[in-house]
């Protein structure tokens, strides 16, 4: 049964977290990865998440994207509370609202670039919007690589395929966990440009976890995590400002 999204929040938040905690394991060895997170992700914005290693960035992102469930608290996506959705509802939610870009690309090796990109549409089974798919492929600059298999593409090209795959279903929000983490800095910069551009020209909402201060200078807003809590938040800032904030955060 489809859970129809409720009316959008008036303040334009497409993703919200309300006192989200996540505990791995139990008893003596329990790890409190998230210890009460409240946040709102703005529509049409690129939100960066930074923080020291082990601060809970990935955990947070997985929970926001419905890949993992919070131990306590609630997450909404486009107004729908997701913490208690069943597998079928979550699948539908993913098809409609969520796109992913992974650090290790996660392309299906047996499909061509174009087939990988089309996969979400094929899975959802709707009519195939060819014009839009073509546009996305052109946008990510893969016009001449459509028929190539992932193994025949460079890392940067593979990540472009992944981004196109995330954009093609026009999801409410795209989550990217260290999308440049596995690329050299020049290629990484190109990928960041691409993400930035899809926010500005397509109005795509993107949440991106990164270790790279330069990456966050592309963001409209950056959240800083430390030890499972959001400890700082800065609006559009340059790389230098972000590095300083990181330093402060690390010494908390």
């Amino acid at each position, binding site marked *: 049964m489809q859970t129809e999204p409720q009316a959008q929040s008036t303040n334009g938040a497409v993703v919200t977290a309300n006192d989200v905690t996540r505990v791995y394991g139990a008893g003596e060895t329990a790890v409190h990865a998230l210890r009460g997170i409240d946040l709102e992700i703005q529509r049409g914005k690129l939100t960066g998440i930074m923080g020291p290693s082990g601060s809970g960035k990935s955990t947070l992102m997985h929970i926001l994207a419905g*890949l993992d469930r919070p131990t306590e608290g609630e997450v909404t996506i486009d107004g729908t509370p997701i913490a208690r959705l069943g597998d079928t509802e979550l699948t539908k939610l993913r098809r409609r609202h969520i796109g992913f870009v992974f650090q290790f690309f996660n392309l299906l090796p047996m499909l061509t670039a174009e087939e990988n990109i089309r996969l979400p549409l094929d899975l959802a089974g709707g009519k195939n919007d060819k014009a839009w798919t073509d546009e996305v492929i052109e946008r990510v600059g893969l016009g001449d690589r459509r028929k190539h298999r992932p193994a025949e593409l460079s890392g940067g090209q593979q990540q472009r395929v992944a981004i196109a795959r995330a954009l093609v279903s026009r999801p409410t929000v795209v989550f990217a966990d260290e999308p440049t983490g596995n690329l050299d800095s020049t290629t990484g910069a190109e990928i960041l440009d691409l993400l930035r551009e899809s926010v500005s020209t397509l109005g795509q909402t993107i949440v991106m976890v990164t270790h790279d201060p330069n990456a966050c200078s592309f963001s409209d807003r950056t959240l800083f995590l430390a030890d499972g809590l959001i400890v700082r938040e800065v609006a559009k800032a340059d790389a230098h400002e972000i590095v300083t904030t990181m330093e402060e955060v690390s010494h908390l």
Partner: protein
Amino acid sequence: MIRVALRGLGGRKLRATLTALAIILGVAMMSGTYVLTDTIDKAFSQIFDESYAGTDVVVSGKGADISFQGTSAAAPSVDEGLVDEVAALPNVEAAAGAITDESSTKIIGSDGKALNTQGAPSFGFGVDATHPDFSRFNAFNLVEGTWAEGDGEVVLDAGVADREGYQVGDTVAISTLRPKQDFEVVGIAKIGDVNSLGTATFAIFDLAAAQELLDREGQVDTISVAGADGTTPEQLVSEIQPVLPDDAQVRLATAEAQDDKEEISEFTSFIEYFLLAFAGIALFVGAFVIFNTLSITVAQRTREFATMRTVGASRRQVLWSVIVEALTIGILASIIGLFAGLGLAIGLNELFKALELDLPTAETVFATRTIVVSLLVGTIITLVAGLFPAIRATRVPPIAAVREGFTLPPGRLHRFTPYIAVLTMALSLFLLGYSMFRDELDTASRLLSIAGGVVLLFVGVAMISSHLVRPLAAVVGWPARAIGGAAGKLARGNSVRNPGRTAATAAALMIGIALVTFVAVLANGMKASNREAIEDQVIADYVVTAQDGFTPFVAAAGDSVAEAPQAELVANVRSDLARVGDAETYLTGIEPDTILETYRFDWKEGNDSVASGLGDDGAIVDANFAEDHDIAVGDTIRVLTPSGQTLEQEVMGLYEPPPFYPLLGGVSVTKERFDSAFERPRNQFTFVNVAGGPSGATTAALTEAVANFPDAKVQTREAWINQQDEDFNQFLTMLYVLLALSVIVSIFGMVNTLVLSVYERTRELGMLRAVGMTRRQARRMVRHESVITALIGAALGLPLGVFLAALVTRALQEFDVRFSVPWGQLVFFAVIAVIVGILAAIMPARRAAKLNVLRALQYE
């Protein structure tokens, strides 16, 4: 989604091919069986249709219609004068008599020995080619030459002529109820277009000659009748009926053909089920292989499935992607198997031929049923085997896409696996016990529940075997560690790394080994019982039998052997079918004067003087038969012979022959009494005692004495027993060849698992090579792992086979089957397992050794 599945398959061609092979063999066996048995059926049905072409009704002798243990008594002959009587009837247009004898005409082959038909008929026909209506009734197709005329001429069957190189104009020796004589081959004939009658043979003589040779002076076996225009066969029957004497009957030719066909299709469907059983075993093993391969594949593709989930695939879609993969493999493999079956049918026929069991064949029959059933069964089995891995794939959560080294947690039922395994085995034991020890079950349900029990037993052991892998590997892996050094040690470690996988791989081999062991142990016991049974009964120096050892032979041969000066004492044992009360059995005729010197009775009631003093109206009865049919000493029993005569005999004594192989029939009377009741009495055995015991010279002399009866075979008691062992071994060879099929399937499974493991450990192998492992060591590591897996299969299969054999031996207790384990053979099977392991490792080991170290380390 279907594309994802198909592409995935295309990207793993080797794996897909190996997986498909697992099912191809089973399907090929199945379709081959159908093709072969349909072809045989068609040949027979052509033979029968041809035999009655142009005939409306058939007049033949009316006997008691007795059949026992698959043999039916031939109908008696009728008086020749009846032909003219019938022909004179107003609505009869034509009538012709013919001789058809099924068993006494033995053609001597080019090597001077009688052709051994292995129990198949050796027909002798007599036809009158000068009869004006001959061609109307003629069932034969003369390919060459002319029909036989007068004495000394014969038309041979094309199959024999071809095999033995006889041509028109040649001389051929043939023995009938008369001693061996030379005939000139004047023609060569077929029945319809049937190329070969298999091991069966026929020779066509002139009618008068056949009457003489086959002891039917003034008689014919069948009268073929055609009605005048406008007369229906039914009308003919009612017209002929009144003129027939009591001992003759008239039947529609179509009904006769139908009966013949039904009788034969009972036989071919037995062959069909027999061979299908092996197809079933191969498919069952194939199911294990497919299950295992798909399970490994699913585990290796965890990340892929998770990624699909994150981009919007539902569980159902993931399920479908695996099922479509299985379905595609299943359909493709079934189609290939279906056509491979055409080739295999030829192979099976060759196998039968090699074992001298070949059967008539016509043009290959490729029936719709063959296509439908083969495709369905192959596809469904693959699908069922793929279901569990497919369900497992759906349990991959999306988060696995981002977690390095995520492995699926064991399923909800995993905890209960040992209990389920034990339950399965308990159920299996129940089924086995039930089917073997309950008497009132009919054969079909008994076999079904045995099959079900064995399948469950294998599944149960396979389920529990993942818990046994560790201890077993420790034992069977010891030599690997000892001789394989570091590589051997790693191999042992690898084999227990994923116990479930090793267990499932070994389980496939276990099935084959268990069945081979079962056969070997049971056969060993049966051979022992057979030897004991014969040694208990026979005290004669020599035994004369037919060439095939089990059909009765011309009685005159027994008289001939008596003429040899070396033969001190001869005891003929006549045998034929009879009905006692309402029970069908063999009736034997013994010679009271000599029987006790050659055959030992184990008396239950009576003593040796009962046998030596047996009078013509007395009978000795097998105690088991007596018990089953409420017969006691002093009773008078009525014995009905196939020709319709009834003998009244008083039961004088009961004896208990070894139940495994009682040499005499249910009831024995004197030879004289026997001969009075049978038209053409034949011997089952002739026992001979010689002066000074058996020797080569004596054997030669006795053999020379029966030279005119080439179907008779003279052997010492010991040689006779050995001969039976040898015949039995031949049958065993066939079973082993057929079971080898399932072992081959399990080899594919092992190759598959190894290839997948090597692929999975690419990085690790690269690391090992980088720190100094040589190619040789890499190869050795894979090979040792393979051998360890194979030995685990053997370690499970051997005891399982012995156990099943023990169970069946117990169930066959009433036949006194011995339980005797052929240790040497079991060791041999273990060696075979090692060889299987080495063979399976060849290709994967080469792959592991070829690995480019640099590339392997970069491999993600």
